[in-house]
């Protein structure tokens, strides 16, 4: 995996790593009081960071059936005991994905995927090898359910060309399918998508992804050359705000102190 912006990014007093900035920008997508469904990895770090900063009343839902846990660093699985601690309820997948997500009570979901296409569709099922054979991926899990029922989907990912094809080789989880209006036609509700990469932020709402902000130090050219389609750029491009030192401190000291998800970070 290559990252177009490799070095540390200066933010307040601390030098934020590119992937730390991804997490911080992810956290900013969570509104106080939101129910948020996350797996593990950077999305969980982002959601935990949001709870510790601007969204103390944001609540986590984990697809395995955990509702509203108090996360102990650092869970590596949706059934990790560190992710079951202090919860409101330990229930079932059906309760979490049916009773909360499909029921429409979970506003925001974080997703990943091998491919995210121009219309924000996600592929996590299989991708082709150069020789035409298939690479088998893990599959949907709760991703299809989250993309079908949440109001807002946030995707945190490295910005690589192969990750952003014009069209997914397989649509596991629906963004806007073939284009505007298709989601409604398929019977799906409204959705906003925000893709946060180490280069930029892209957004879509019943549309193709539009670049709305650049990461500090990133350029439009870098975005274009690392994207498999030609994204529109919003006229007034924002620059993603740097983390403040407290956010970096929280991430490093409280949220992932053992660097489980930051092998590139060595603790002092």
């Amino acid at each position: 995996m290559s990252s177009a912006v490799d070095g540390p990014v200066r933010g307040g007093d601390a030098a934020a790593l590119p992937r730390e900035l991804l997490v911080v920008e992810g956290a900013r997508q969570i509104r106080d009081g939101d129910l948020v469904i996350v797996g593990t990895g950077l999305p969980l770090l982002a959601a935990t960071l949001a709870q510790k900063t601007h969204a103390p009343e944001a609540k986590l839902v984990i697809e395995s059936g955990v509702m509203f846990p108090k996360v102990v660093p650092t869970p590596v699985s949706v059934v990790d005991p560190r992710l079951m601690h202090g919860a409101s309820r330990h229930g079932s997948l059906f309760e979490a994905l049916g009773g909360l997500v499909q029921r429409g009570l979970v506003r925001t979901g974080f997703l990943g995927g091998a491919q995210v296409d121009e219309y924000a569709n996600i592929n996590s099922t299989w991708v082709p090898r150069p020789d035409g054979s298939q690479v088998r991926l893990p599959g949907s899990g709760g991703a299809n359910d989250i993309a079908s029922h949440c109001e807002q989907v946030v995707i945190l990912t490295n910005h690589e060309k192969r990750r952003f094809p014009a069209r997914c080789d397989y649509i596991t989880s629906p963004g806007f399918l073939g284009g505007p209006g298709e989601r409604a036609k398929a019977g799906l509700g409204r959705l906003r998508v925000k893709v946060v990469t180490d280069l930029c932020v892209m957004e879509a709402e019943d549309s193709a992804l539009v670049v709305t902000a650049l990461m500090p130090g990133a350029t439009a050219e870098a975005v274009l050359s690392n994207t498999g389609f030609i994204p529109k750029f919003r006229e007034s491009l924002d620059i993603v705000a740097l983390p403040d030192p407290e956010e970096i401190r929280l991430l490093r000291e409280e949220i992932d102190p053992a660097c489980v998800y930051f092998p590139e970070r060595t603790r002092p």
Partner: protein
Amino acid sequence: MHKLLTATEAVARYVEPGAVVGMGGQNINRCPMALVHEVIRQEIGQLTVVGCNLSLPLDMLVACGLVARTEQGTGNLERYGTLFAWRRAVERGEVSVGDHSHLAMATRFAAGALGLPYLPTRSLLGTDLLEDLVTAGVAVEAVDPWSNRPLVLLKAMTPDVALIHANRVDVSGNVVIEGVTSHEVDMVRAARVTIVSAEEVLPAGSFADRPEQVTIPEAYVTAVVAQPFGAFPTSVYRAYDFAEPEVKEYQALGRAGDDELQAWIAANLGDSFEDHLKIRDASGAMREALVAQMGRLV
């Protein structure tokens, strides 16, 4: 009725070649390792393995050539990577796959649990996932007669036999699970036969003073097996943490290749699960540490 059997007896009696096996557990939690080891020991093959997330026990069954098909939401170990034996077998076309979303699988089990031919979902719409499920004959596109909006009907999934591992069970088959239950309760209720292994097997009526806390009532349980650390190296909430080095070792071998996996399984399976535990953790120190680790988390 007294349902206590050995793992050997229970698996021999209730898991048949070609069966649809409902797999308990998820990722690194409460996988029915002792029961699956026994399936491997008895070389019961041509299985269709179904679950939501399939992980370590499926991969071992695949590595041993016992699986013909899987139906699932995911096949992986999250942070510890893909299921290498499964992935290779799927890519070679040796194992066929029915891909679902997790809610779709949970919905199919719920239909079976309720004695219904199908249940609807509003997931899957518009995707290739749906197209493949329609082709496979387990999903039908339909319309809500009240709103005329599209939805999906998912065929009931009724495993021939479900395998789960629990914290506690009484000899009548009343099961207490701590922590999340993933897809297991509805899967068991949908299955024709269920084998439950547990950390502790208690006398009949042990939970009768708190029947609300029984996760799965005896009505759905066919056989009960006593096996402490029966989910090792995966975790049992409040009992022991998962054994990360064991998972990593398995995955390193998985990445290396099928031969490496098979050799490891052959060398470590032992004559019984107790035997296996002794091979992996002769002194018991690892298990002690996992218990202590969990103790600090709950």
